[in-house]
C-alpha cells in the first residue's frame, strides 16, 4: 500500500466552446501576416470548435472523495471561460486578444491565467484542442 502522500492525484475535466478568430499581428506587415498565418489571416476571420481540458490537483477530501467539487469547477469554468468565449469573436470580444494574437498557444495562456483564480484546487495545466488534429498545453512558467 502506497502512502497517500507519495501519490499525486489530478482531476481532469473537458469543456467545449465555439469561437471565431483571425491571426494577424500588428507588428508585421500585411504581406508578412499573409505569409506567416496563411489562410488563418483571412480578414473576415474563421472559427473552431475548441475543447478545453483543465487539470487540477490537491488533497482528496476523505469526506467527499474529491479534489474539488465538480459542480464548483464547472460553475467557475462556465463563468470565466465558456461564457466569455463561446460563440464570440476572440479578437473583438476578449480583452487579452485586442493585443495578443489569438493563437491557441496564447489562448492556453489566457485560460490558464483565468483558471489560476479557481480557489478550490491547484491548477496544473490547461490543454486546448483547436481541432482534433492540433492541441496545445500550458502548465505555467516555471521560471516565475
Amino acid at each position: 500500500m502506497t502512502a497517500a502522500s507519495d501519490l499525486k492525484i489530478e482531476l481532469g475535466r473537458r469543456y467545449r466552446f465555439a469561437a471565431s478568430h483571425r491571426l494577424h499581428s500588428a507588428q508585421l506587415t500585411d504581406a508578412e501576416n499573409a505569409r506567416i498565418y496563411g489562410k488563418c489571416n483571412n480578414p473576415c476571420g474563421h472559427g473552431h470548435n475548441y475543447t478545453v481540458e483543465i487539470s487540477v490537483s490537491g488533497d482528496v477530501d476523505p469526506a467527499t472523495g474529491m479534489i474539488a467539487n465538480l459542480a464548483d469547477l464547472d460553475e467557475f469554468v462556465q463563468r470565466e471561460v465558456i461564457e466569455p468565449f463561446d460563440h464570440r469573436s476572440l479578437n473583438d470580444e476578449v480583452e487579452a486578444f485586442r493585443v495578443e494574437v489569438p493563437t491557441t498557444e496564447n489562448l492556453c495562456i489566457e485560460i490558464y491565467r483565468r483558471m489560476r483564480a479557481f480557489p478550490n484546487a491547484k491548477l496544473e495545466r490547461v490543454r486546448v484542442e483547436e481541432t482534433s488534429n492540433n492541441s496545445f498545453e500550458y502548465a505555467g512558467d516555471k521560471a516565475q
Partner: protein
Amino acid sequence: MVLLTRKIEFSASHRYNNPAMSEEENRRVFGKCNNPHGHGHNYTLEVTVAGEPDPVTGMVVDLADLKKILEQEVMRRMDHRHLNFEVPELAGQIPTCENVARVIWNLLEPKIPQGRLHRVRLYESPDLFADCYRNGCGPNGSAA
C-alpha cells in the same frame, strides 16, 4: 525512458454517499450522484509503464504480462460490479474517480514486473478523468 500505455474498459455502478453527513447534505454535495439506487459508467482505464526497452526483447514491459495483471487486478474486481459493495479496497471511501484511480494504482504498482508504473488515468466519462502519479514523477515533475 519510454512510456507504454495499455487501455482497458470496464463498466461498474456506484453511489456517492457519506454516512457521516445528513441526507440533505449528501444531496447538496453529491447532487444526482447521491441517487439512492446508484448509477453506472463505462470506465476507460489507461495504464502507463515507464522504463528502458529491454535490449533483448525491445520491450519496456511484456504486454501479455500487463494484460494478465489488468485482467486479474482490475477487470475481475471491478467489471460489472457495484464499486460501493463489491470492491473491498474501496470500503469506507466514496468511489469517486480520484479514489478509484488511487485504488487501482495501489493494486497495480506492486505487480508491474518490468519498468515502473508511471501513470494511471481513469476516465469516468469522456469529459471527466483522474490521473494518479508518484509524487515528483508527474507530467510536470522532474523525473518526467
